[in-house]
């Protein structure tokens, strides 16, 4: 019983610390504490937001269809979800290709058999969907033709009619001009009016034709949902077929183990041949064997060149934002402390802070990129890069100049909040606490680490939280520009693709970025709460 109660309090404490206070009523309800109040709170803080989300989804669903762009309508929630599935499927397939490349033994045989079976099925689907697309297109074409035919006929008739009319008018007017008597102003004016009238008339006719033409074009532009659906299914099937044939290759001929075995076999054949050779031929053979062995060892350690998948990009983005965040913090906190401690230093720094603070990431990035690539001209042979690539965990993210430039941009754009808050926190340290330090005769560093920093920590962390939020926003833009592998690059690639599902995929990124940003913020709130003490200055 006591244990249960303790659990309740620790649960509530965790909830409070993490700021997930909407969960507290559930815990309390489980313990039967004022069920009515708790239910009311649950209604307010859980059900209402859920209802809000539902309402949003509903509104989104019904309005998206009416927002027409030249790239199609705005994707609705279902299409966005399909976009997510497409992204995820691609990531999964790339992972499976890598596995296939490395797989050995019975597992490989099994997977190969499965893939072949599946391919046979999918091939049927491909044929079906191809037929469906053709049929749908033909149907739509016929329909469009039918709709357009009368309009087109009218257009053509009108056009030739107007053309002829215009020509005739011109001819009449030209003949009329022959009979003009020089000097007779009235006559000339009358003639001019006739010409003007004719010009206006021609313009009117042109306008009429153009309206008709636009009508025809509009019919042509109508996108048939049947065709779109057929195309989507065709793409599904064709992409799977393509993936499967590649996977089968990777499971068979291009499988690493298979290639290694073949090479080993070849070397042993060479060895046999070598034993019966003399002279230059023997030398050549020996050399071939040596080279083949070298290739073999390379082959054994080779890995499948896996393209960046969305999840890898997400991880790399998070890693990048933290790298930049740490760089920014390492700069901002010491400078902030100095600013807070010494008003002269603050006065010296103020102009720089004021000027650099509003600079956009779009400006910092190219500069950072040029400087970083200038410092690391040849990443493949740069000792720092090689060192970073060999590190466990970090090595996987292939830190390159674009990554560093993005991280530096994040740092440059995000450090200001931390700097300002640190300076404020240090400057607003309680006078009494400083007096304590004086009475205790604490040295500079003891004073700094025992009094100043702990006292400023709540504000520093409030600044860090803002910084991380800013950094996350900036990073996406920075990656987009530097083409550093990450979420930003994913968005840019999708935009560049301009395919019919690109918009849906970009919408997925909206949620992805939002959710990750939310999680980062939550993490910072926990830290912030952990260092906050009663009576500390808060923002």
């Amino acid at each position: 019983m006591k244990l249960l109660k303790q659990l309740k309090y620790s649960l509530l404490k965790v909830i409070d610390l993490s700021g997930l206070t909407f969960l507290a009523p559930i815990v309390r309800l489980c313990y039967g504490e004022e069920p009515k109040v708790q239910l009311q709170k649950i209604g307010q803080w859980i059900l209402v937001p859920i209802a809000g989300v539902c309402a949003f989804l509903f509104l989104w669903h019904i309005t998206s269809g009416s927002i027409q762009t030249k790239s199609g309508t705005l994707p609705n929630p279902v299409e966005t979800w399909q976009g997510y599935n497409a992204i995820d499927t691609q990531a999964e397939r790339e992972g499976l290709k890598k596995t296939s490349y490395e797989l050995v033994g019975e597992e490989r045989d099994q997977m190969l058999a499965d893939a072949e079976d599946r391919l046979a099925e999918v091939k049927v689907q491909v044929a079906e969907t191809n037929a469906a697309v053709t049929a749908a297109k033909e149907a739509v074409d016929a329909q469009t033709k039918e709709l357009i035919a009368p309009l087109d006929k009218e257009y053509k008739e009108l056009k030739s009619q107007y053309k002829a009319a215009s020509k005739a008018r011109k001819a009449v007017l030209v003949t009329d001009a022959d009979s003009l008597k020089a000097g007779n102003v009235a006559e000339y004016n009358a003639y001019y009016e006739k010409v003007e009238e004719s010009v206006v008339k021609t313009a009117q006719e042109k306008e009429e034709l153009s309206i008709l033409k636009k009508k025809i074009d509009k019919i042509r532009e109508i996108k048939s949902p049947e065709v779109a659906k057929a195309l989507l299914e065709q793409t599904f099937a064709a992409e799977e077929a393509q993936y499967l044939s590649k996977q089968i290759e990777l499971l068979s001929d291009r499988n690493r183990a298979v290639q290694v075995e073949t090479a080993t076999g070849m070397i042993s054949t060479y060895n046999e041949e070598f034993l019966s050779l003399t002279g230059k031929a023997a030398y050549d053979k020996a050399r071939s064997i040596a080279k083949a062995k070298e290739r073999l060892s390379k082959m054994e350690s080779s890995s499948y060149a896996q393209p960046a998948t969305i999840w890898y990009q997400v991880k790399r983005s998070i890693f990048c934002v933290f790298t930049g965040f740490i760089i920014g913090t390492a700069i901002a906190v010491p400078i902030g402390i100095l600013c807070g401690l010494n008003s002269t230093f603050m006065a010296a720094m103020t102009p720089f802070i004021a000027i650099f603070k509003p600079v956009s990431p779009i400006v910092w990035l190219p500069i950072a990129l040029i400087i970083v690539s200038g410092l690391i001209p040849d990443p493949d042979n740069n000792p720092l890069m090689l060192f970073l690539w060999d590190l466990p965990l970090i090595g996987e993210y292939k830190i390159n100049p674009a990554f560093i430039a993005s991280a530096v941009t994040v740092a440059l754009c995000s450090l200001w909040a931390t700097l300002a808050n640190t300076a404020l926190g240090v400057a607003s340290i309680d006078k009494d606490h400083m007096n304590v330090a004086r009475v205790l005769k604490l040295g500079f560093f003891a004073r700094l680490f025992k009094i100043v920093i702990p006292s400023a920590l709540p504000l520093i962390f409030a600044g860090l939280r803002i910084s991380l939020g800013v950094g996350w926003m900036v990073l996406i833009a920075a990656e987009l520009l530097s083409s550093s592998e990450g979420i930003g690059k994913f968005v840019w690639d999708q935009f560049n693709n301009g395919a019919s599902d690109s918009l849906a995929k970009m919408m997925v990124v909206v949620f992805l970025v939002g959710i990750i940003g939310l999680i980062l913020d939550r993490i910072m709130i926990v830290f912030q709460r952990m260092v906050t003490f009663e009576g500390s200055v808060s923002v």
Partner: protein
Amino acid sequence: MKAHTLKQHVGSLSLAAGMAMTSFVAAEQLDVEKSELKFGFIKLTDCAPIVIAKEKGFFEDEGLQVDVVAQPNWKTLLDNVISGDLDGAHMLSGQPLAATIGFGTKAHIITAFTMDLNGNGITVSNNIWEQMQANDEKLDSDTPPHPITADSLKPIVEEKLEDGEKLQMGMVFPTSTHNYELRYWLAAAGINPGMYTKSDVGGRTDAQVELSVTPPPMMPATLESGNIQGYCVGEPWNQQAVSKGIGVPVTTNYDIWKNNPEKVFGVSKSWADENPQTYLAVTKALIRAGKWLDAADESGKLVNREEAARILSRSDYVGADYDVIKNSMTGYFYFQKTDKREMPEFNVFFKDHATYPWYSDGIWFLTQMRRWGQISEPKSKDWYYETAKSVYKPEVYLAAAKLLLEDGHVEKAEIPWDADGFKAPTKDFIDGVEYNGKEPIKYLNSHTIGNKDPEA
């Protein structure tokens, strides 16, 4: 697929079964210095040779594991090649030359492989198209006769100039084929597209039509927003304009200069010096990819293009809709929704010795750089030769081709073994002016608009 070999692998792996696959683990594999490579590309269908070499396993056959990464724009792509972040990349033909002579970023970039011929189009907005039709009755049809020159555009330009405006057009990069082609097309009709000078790196001095740089994928959107009235770009961005109904492609670069080299595979000189065997292996794989792309049956139908279009439509490659990519890749081009034409040579990836790095192609770009002032000083004939030779590396190409010939991957007639690097003089330009790569200065002087140099 090779069903018989697959079956064998499903069973136990005997040595004999292994021996059946020598085509994959070729004894002829080169001793590559670097086996894991990263190549960059821009989302255009002409990146196909790199993507195909990867997807069809031609790189793997050379013992290479290649990562293919989309780049946001040509400048970043070039910077990444120079910085070593990329081992090589899909480049505009003018890019290695410009980098080597120091127009823009300076770095010695070389190429041993031309990725494709043709493949660009000039698109104008619907409004301009209507005016062009009004100016030239022949155009006022669902299927107007080709080639369409800029003659019918000239009155529009002049009218705008009288109103104190300049027609705005987009191209993708100052040293891109698009820039030179668009300029050529305009100048052929007597429209001055503007000169580059030392102080005007935007190339707008004396311009009657102002050209600005816009990344290819942004072209349709920029046209739609009215910031530009036309553009010159590669596929699928012309077809995109048609399918979205925002513009009309008026001509392709096939008409401007028949079989012009569009993209090359560029690497930095230092990379090539450090990794000569790797470079050779990469070139081998690319030649095979080109050949695969241009494979045709007896009737001349390109048999692999649909598969290529499907691969390219993957979102980590070109990513546009399959339907859009398929058009140009399978030899069709929509000039309007009502005007679908067969253009089997819209993209040429291999035939007619397309992949060979011709000096004369490089020199043409150099003449255009001089013509429009990107090269500010007059240069001698020898300078043109020397520069082309320092960038174009047919010797690497031929070495790779020789290895492929030994392996049986190419046939003797497919490679110009004895070429001296210069194509025969041709008049296949929209204005009919003859181009002879051996006489760059003479060629320069045969144009009305643009810089002219004294013959040394």
